């Protein structure tokens, strides 16, 4: 994980090149699909379970306080087939303590939760292979 990106929450307006419906099997009403947020933190929990993969991570703010953020992606079956990702996901892909960046649509009510569009690992690799991340690099 690049230290410069740590603890930064960046709002980016506009619509991603990556199709939103590609990554989830239910609707997105709880999330603002017109906005994108990037959050850096350390993995605290990785649930590789149907119907949606859930990632939880601890984010340390500038004042030292920590907040638990979460994110959801499509089903593990689809990720394990590399159907919607360039990396072949598995239950061991993320480990507790891994430094990652979650990129996604924020919850409309301000909850620290994302509808994930990309997961960036500690090597800077976009695990979902989104155009958004590859064009950013």
């Amino acid at each position: 994980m690049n230290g410069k990106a740590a603890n930064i929450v960046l709002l980016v307006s506009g619509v991603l090149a990556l199709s939103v419906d590609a990554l989830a099997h239910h609707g997105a009403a709880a999330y603002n699909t017109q906005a994108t947020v990037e959050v850096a933190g350390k993995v605290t929990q990785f649930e590789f379970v149907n119907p949606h993969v859930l990632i939880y991570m601890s984010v340390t703010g500038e004042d030292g306080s920590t907040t638990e953020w979460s994110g959801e992606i499509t089903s593990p079956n689809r990720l394990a087939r590399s159907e919607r990702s360039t990396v072949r996901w598995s239950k061991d892909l993320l480990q507790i303590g891994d430094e990652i960046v979650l990129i996604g649509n924020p919850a409309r009510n301000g909850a620290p939760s994302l509808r994930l569009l990309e997961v960036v690992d500690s090597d800077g690799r976009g695990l979902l292979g989104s155009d958004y991340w590859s064009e950013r690099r």
Partner: protein
Amino acid sequence: MSKPMIVWAAVYVAAVYSPTIQSQSVGHGADFSGVWSQDRGAQPERFRNYAFTEELPPMTEWAQERFDQSKPTFGPRNVPVLETNDPVYECFPPGTPRVYLHPFPMEIVQTSDRVLMVFEYDHLIRQIYIDGRGHRTDLAPMWMGDSTGHWEGDVLVVETVNFNDKTWTDRRGVPHSDQLRVIERIRRISDENLQIDITIEDPVAFTEPWVGTRIYRAVDWDVEEFICMDNVNFEAFEREVLNYDGGVN
């Protein structure tokens, strides 16, 4: 080798080596066996995840009333998962033909008397009887309906009836009654693609037949486990998000 020869050679190999059809003759007009996934490129992205057509079907007053009461998670009227009354979120089967809208693969297995569709989504199995039998009259209405089929050349024509009225026709909340009748015409349009033309009739719900198409592509995947009851974890997650009270809004 010509294409028909290749197809029949494949059927022969399957007949010899597959334990399920080893001792049975293969009495069908085409080979659909294999794992199929929705061909996303062949469907308009705007609605492919939740509807067969972008336009709503012509609904009767009966259906319009129920449609107005439905709270789908997809489409222009979408609500968060915790607020939906979509029966699928209670882990009821999606029904036919809605099951085709869920973005998971299905495997087709053919025997001499049946075509089986094994859906990854909630491990549902459709049995389409092609042995000439009629529809059952002794069973209660069903979630996925009662399917019989016959070959018209290399097209499998499937009629499904005897539905209950508890499922939605698509993922945006279009209802149907127990008078739903679904006709599917299934055929290979290339070595890699399967086309399913669907006609949805329901005199109680729709004022005229409603027609849609789904295109599938052959994939080398396995159909994996997908159990709806695992939703328990996800619902807890959604609840955490929706009940969050420390936000700015």
